[in-house]
């Protein structure tokens, strides 16, 4: 019940007029489930909107790769903030705010807002609190207000990840407004924030029709570089991919965010439509649980890695728009080495490996997301080829809740995973995916040497030193094969020809401020 139902704002601003032609329309697959970033479920549409309507203190820069504009995760710069810098030990980070930045309520953004927002994040024990742990922030009092425009973050240890982590966490609420709606039972005004869009970001939510459409208007008071270029953007909910396509073709929407790979490939030569394509660090893989038979046998894992039809997947599922991956470390991540994954589609070798393992025929379930057409296709292709090698796979699509539960129990022998690391760094990758107890380590992979390297990397700030460590990591992973890495699909997006300025987000969350419409 966003917007109008709450009785609070938003006033249809006069600027929003401009008529049909002026506004840019984006088709999205669903409506935001909640406006409260601290408590929200994992909802891509919502996270994308937050990037554009919350004031983030720092954000990624933009770089040009082969003609495509992409977000540069290695250059992070202050946006709403004046500056964000560490002390000499890399332990205490100081955030300086600009003066005169205002929320929609008219309240000025001050250090108190930052402090309140961080206190709230720690109290929520959810998203932000989770990632802050990686950089040694676990208590609310590690965040200190120095003066009205200065806040200090006292990390427990220095970390190479601070920029990255803070880039995704440093968003600020209008605390003065929030306190008006806080109650004893609800000190963090959860109820109010769930229903009412935040303010102060690049865009303001000028209208929200529950379930149907959200209208964004540029925040004219933004003080920094790169303010929003379009005055109005509309996000329209179109659940079915097929209808998104029809509407794009008809010109009723300018950008379609939820279309299938196949449709996008089709639209490459459609009239009035262009397809933006950019390399991404999105990894598609099959994680094998090394703790579960039969994948506790490295030979079996290698056999499966040889039974995956990599090229067929790239051409059939992604229409060729994907890069083959040669390491578990993503392409474009500093330290990537071709030697990290010495396996290719080779059924004879797969059979030979199985024979070596003494298990000429094995069976297992292959788990994937139920509503994910892409994964479904991959699973079908893998099943078909693996069967030829003597590996019988039972396809098990799981709904989000069951998948979440089974992942938490780490009880899935074989599963398809897809995703990109929020931080483009091997240390972060190890911490999340390849160390003991790591959350994304669905393979249950443990290797003592990697544990040691990970430990070491916390304090290794020297770039060359780190690269050396990463090379070793890839050697180990190549031998152990906890994953069969399938490919890195490119990011593709069909838009109307009039649309320009798309910047490919490496975190998957579109920055709408760069968009223009001819």
């Amino acid at each position: 019940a966003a917007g109008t139902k709450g009785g609070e704002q938003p006033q249809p601003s006069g600027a929003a007029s401009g008529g049909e032609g002026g506004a840019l329309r984006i088709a999205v697959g669903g409506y935001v489930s909640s406006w409260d970033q601290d408590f929200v479920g994992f909802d891509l549409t919502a996270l994308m909107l937050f990037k554009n309507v919350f004031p983030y203190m720092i954000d990624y820069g933009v770089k040009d790769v082969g003609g495509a504009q992409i977000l540069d995760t290695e250059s992070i710069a202050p946006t709403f903030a004046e500056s964000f810098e560490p002390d000499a030990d890399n332990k205490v980070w100081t955030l300086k705010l600009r003066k005169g930045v205002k929320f929609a309520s008219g309240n000025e953004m001050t250090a108190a807002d930052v402090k309140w927002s961080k206190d709230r994040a720690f109290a929520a024990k959810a998203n932000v609190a989770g990632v802050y742990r990686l950089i040694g922030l676990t208590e609310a009092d590690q965040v200190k207000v120095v003066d009205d425009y200065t806040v200090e973050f006292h990390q427990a240890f220095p970390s190479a990840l601070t920029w990255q982590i803070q880039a995704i966490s440093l968003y600020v609420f209008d605390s003065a407004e929030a306190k008006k709606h806080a109650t004893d039972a609800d000190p963090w005004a959860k109820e109010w924030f769930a229903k009412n869009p935040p303010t102060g970001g690049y865009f303001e939510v000028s209208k929200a029709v529950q379930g149907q459409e959200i209208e964004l208007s540029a925040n004219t008071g933004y003080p920094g570089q790169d303010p929003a270029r379009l005055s109005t953007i509309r996000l329209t909910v179109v659940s079915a991919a097929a209808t998104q396509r029809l509407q794009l073709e008809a010109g009723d929407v300018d950008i379609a965010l939820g279309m299938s790979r196949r449709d996008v490939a089709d639209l490459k030569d459609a009239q009035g439509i262009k397809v933006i394509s950019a390399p991404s660090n999105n990894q598609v893989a099959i994680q094998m649980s090394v703790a579960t038979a039969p994948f506790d046998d490295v030979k079996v894992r290698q056999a499966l890695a040889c039974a995956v039809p990599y090229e067929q997947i790239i051409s059939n599922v992604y229409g060729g728009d994907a890069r083959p991956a040669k390491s578990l470390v993503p392409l474009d991540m500093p330290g990537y080495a071709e030697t990290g994954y010495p396996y290719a589609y080779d059924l004879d070798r797969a059979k030979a490996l199985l024979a070596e393992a003494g298990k000429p025929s094995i069976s297992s379930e292959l788990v994937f997301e139920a509503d994910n057409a892409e994964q479904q296709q991959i699973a079908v292709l893998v099943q078909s080829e693996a069967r030829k090698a003597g590996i019988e796979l039972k396809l098990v699509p799981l709904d989000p809740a069951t998948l979440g539960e089974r992942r938490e129990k780490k009880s899935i022998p074989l599963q398809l995973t897809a995703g990109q690391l929020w931080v483009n760094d091997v240390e972060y990758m190890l911490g999340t995916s390849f160390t003991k107890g790591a959350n994304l380590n669905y393979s249950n992979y443990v290797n003592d040497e990697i544990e040691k390297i990970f430990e070491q990397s916390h304090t290794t700030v020297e770039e060359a030193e780190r690269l050396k460590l990463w090379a070793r990591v890839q050697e180990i992973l190549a031998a152990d094969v906890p994953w069969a890495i399938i490919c890195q699909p490119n990011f593709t997006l069909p838009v109307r020809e009039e649309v320009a300025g798309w910047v490919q987000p490496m975190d998957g969350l579109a920055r709408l401020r760069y968009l223009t419409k001819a």
Partner: protein
Amino acid sequence: MADLTTAGEAGPPRAAAADRGFATTLIRTGSVILGLVVLAVLIGPLLVRWGPEEIDAAASLAPPGGAHPLGTDVNGMDILSRVLHAGRLDLGVAVASVALAVVLGTLLGIVAGYRGGLVDDVLMRILDVFQAFPAFILALAVAALLGGGVPELILVIALVNAPAYARLVRAEVRTVRELPFVEASRTSGSSGLGTLWRHVLPNSLTPVRVIAPLNCGWAMLTLAGLSFLGLGVTVPTAEWGAMISLGSADVVAGRWWTSVPPGLLLLVSVLGFSLLGEGLQERAGVTR
């Protein structure tokens, strides 16, 4: 859809002759359609070169012609083969689930209708509870508890249908049990079960017999709907609804062949069942 209340409506004598003629036409047409479909799905697969889950790596979304008379789907599987194999599954699930629903519903309906009183009230309330659950919730529950497979789907569709049959049979039993021949049987000293089995049951099943074919068509549509929601058969099992669902996006791209063949076969089969059911209803109404 599960419309079970119109069973056995009497047609008037005025239109009787003409209607009986039309009823026969309906029954014949329905039977011929179903016969052809059954024949096709039984014999057809033997004549097709590709297996239903066999992937032609070279031909994803190939248009009809050449090695694939009806083209291939996005996975490179042969549409013709899949459509025919799917028919076996769909018809099988439809018939099996309706049969199961009939058995379950009849049992419940008989007990409730014949015993009456508290037993009736309690059973009916339980059925009410059951009917309050939408099909997809039941489907998900059963799939999650028992695992998602064809037997589970049959169970789900049967469970969704059974209450309607139970009501139908119950209503009929309540009428029949008051008829003189039932009392006659009881005065003869027959046991309750004997009377039930020999007199009440055979005379209470006419509406069920008439409705069942109509319901088979509806069961197929339900299966298709569940597949569309991703609650039906798992990939890559060939099933019409799942094929339509997978291919529905292709239609807008002009690749009609992925979803039109299963769609047409589904339509034709459901229509076959409907015509048959309609004809039977008509006839039952007239001859009653």
